[in-house]
């Protein structure tokens, strides 16, 4: 895997914020460019990987990469303002400096999904690490069968990547199902929790791979729901999140049982998760 290793793995690559987009009241999409052109060119990553972003003076955090490297449209992260580091990141303006360490972790093996139906299930910011998968499927449309995306949020304003929904629904054999926990006066769509929508839609497990990301509790319910629909554990994939500090398997913090989320994950099949001893 593919980036220039820093001699000191704890020193980030310097980078600048080249784009900022408000996705929801507390989620921003950051476009970042590494300052050194050679580092920028060699920063090659795959769908599902993550990187550490440093807000110097405050700290560092791991964030799923929300862009598809192939598109060469910039390295993007969707960051929710929820703690000290994310709050500092949200205060940055275009042109601001930050640090990037990565890419880390394993990735979605898109080659294994060729010819299959792709079922994407995202809740809240969970849709962000799945966005590169969506983009890959859209860009290589004939390599995959049906694409179904179930995307939920707490409220209509909190649906993430609403600016792209048309692009996701438009191509042939692409279906986008949105849902919210609570609607508002304008909302015409579904008011339901993501696991409920999964059961309602009752997707067939035939030749399908289900890729899920969202809050732990949503993942747990969706996993149960898909099992009930007949999905086998090998057909279900998710990406997990844990508190991290080093991201390179040294600080012994992000393990769920004997698996380190930074090295063995963050992408896991349900088959692997069923062998986890600990609850994530």
């Amino acid at each position, binding site marked *: 895997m593919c980036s220039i*290793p820093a*001699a*000191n*793995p*704890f*020193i980030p690559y*310097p980078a600048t914020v080249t784009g900022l987009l408000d996705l929801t009241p507390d989620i921003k999409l950051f476009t970042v460019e590494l*300052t050194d052109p050679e580092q920028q060119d060699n920063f090659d990553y795959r769908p599902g990987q993550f990187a550490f972003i*440093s807000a*110097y*003076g*405050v*700290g*560092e*955090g791991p964030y799923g990469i929300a862009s598809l490297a192939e598109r060469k449209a910039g390295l993007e992260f969707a960051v929710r303002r*929820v*703690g*000290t*580091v*994310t709050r500092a990141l949200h205060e940055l303006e275009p042109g601001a*400096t930050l*640090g990037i360490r990565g890419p880390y972790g394993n990735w979605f093996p898109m080659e294994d999904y060729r010819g299959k139906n792709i079922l994407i299930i995202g809740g809240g910011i969970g849709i962000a690490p799945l966005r590169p998968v969506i983009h890959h499927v859209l860009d290589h449309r004939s390599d995959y069968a049906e694409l179904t995306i179930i995307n939920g949020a707490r409220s209509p304003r909190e649906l993430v990547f609403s600016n792209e929904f048309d692009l996701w629904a438009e191509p042939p054999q692409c279906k986008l199902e949105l849902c919210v926990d609570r609607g508002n006066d304008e909302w015409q769509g579904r008011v339901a929790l993501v696991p409920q929508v999964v059961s309602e839609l009752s997707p067939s497990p035939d030749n399908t791979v289900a890729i899920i990301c969202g*809050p*732990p509790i949503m993942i747990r319910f969706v996993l149960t729901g898909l099992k009930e629909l007949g999905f086998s554990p090998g057909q279900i994939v998710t990406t997990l*999140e*844990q*508190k991290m*500090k*080093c991201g*390179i*398997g*040294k*600080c*012994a*913090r992000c*393990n*769920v*049982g*004997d698996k380190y989320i930074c090295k063995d994950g963050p992408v896991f099949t349900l088959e692997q998760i069923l062998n986890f*001893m*600990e*609850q*994530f």
Partner: protein
Amino acid sequence: MNRIIVDNNLRSWLKELAEKYTLVAPVTSDGVTLFKHVKGSQVDSLDLQYSNTAVSPKGCFFPLSETMFSIGSDGVNVIAPVSTDREVVIFGIHPCDAAGIALIDRVFLAEPTDTHYKEKRDRTILIGLACNAPSPECFCPSVGGGPANPMYLDILLTQTSAGYIVQATTGKGKELTPAARMEEKDIPLPPPPHVTPVPLEGVSEMMRRNFDSPYWDRVADRCLHCNICSYVCPCCYCFDIRDYMGKDKIDRVRSWESCQSAGFTMIAGGHDPRPTKGARLRQRWYHKLLYFPELFGDIKCTGCGRCVRSCPVNIDIREIITDVQKLNV
């Protein structure tokens, strides 16, 4: 035939080493023995009969706090840490502590290499001292070590009535041994002192089967979730990384932390996969007795007994091991 160095010569050798190297040795003050940097003038007052230091010498390679790098006030300029070329000699380290460093090596020297740790390891020589009188809590042979085990050391000194037998096991060690100060004598290596064994057969498998046992909550009842066990341990290595604002720079600092402290695994937003005392306590034992052996083949413990002595509420790893082997699935 073995090479012997008598105490006087040993001391004069150490004083010479103190000139050329940074000499680190066990120093006792106020009843507490710790590894400290010593000057030549302190060599004569070194107590070489110590049983074990309060805290292991892992801090020589993996300090309690370490500035990994700094960022200048422009927010861009990375100031790498200033390193020294001066080599270090750690003298008087017991085999259990050398084994602890070797266990940490498995993680920190693996790719991507922890350059801070490696840099210190590369310029340090370990001169060990075999134990004469292990503490009742020690159990190093049960975890593959021993009170006179020369492994993981560059040189091992074993005390006899005629002086210390010198064994150099590595190239670095051989180069350093003071040939002129040693004599060949027909004195055999003494049998190592007895250390009470702790039977470890099958413990990893029993751990695997008893993850959900209420046993862990019961032990955790009395756990204070201080960090003492992890901090005195020669092979615990969890750490925190955090930024600290300086006057015109920002320091990114790595510090020891323990899986026992509350909030160790809490994510911003409040979700914590280990919210209970039992879950946190359980992590320590599973890391040591199951996860690490699965990854590296060895139990993450050197039998030094420090955690047993230092735990304020007597959570005893030997007791945990024997209890787990008797647990019903």
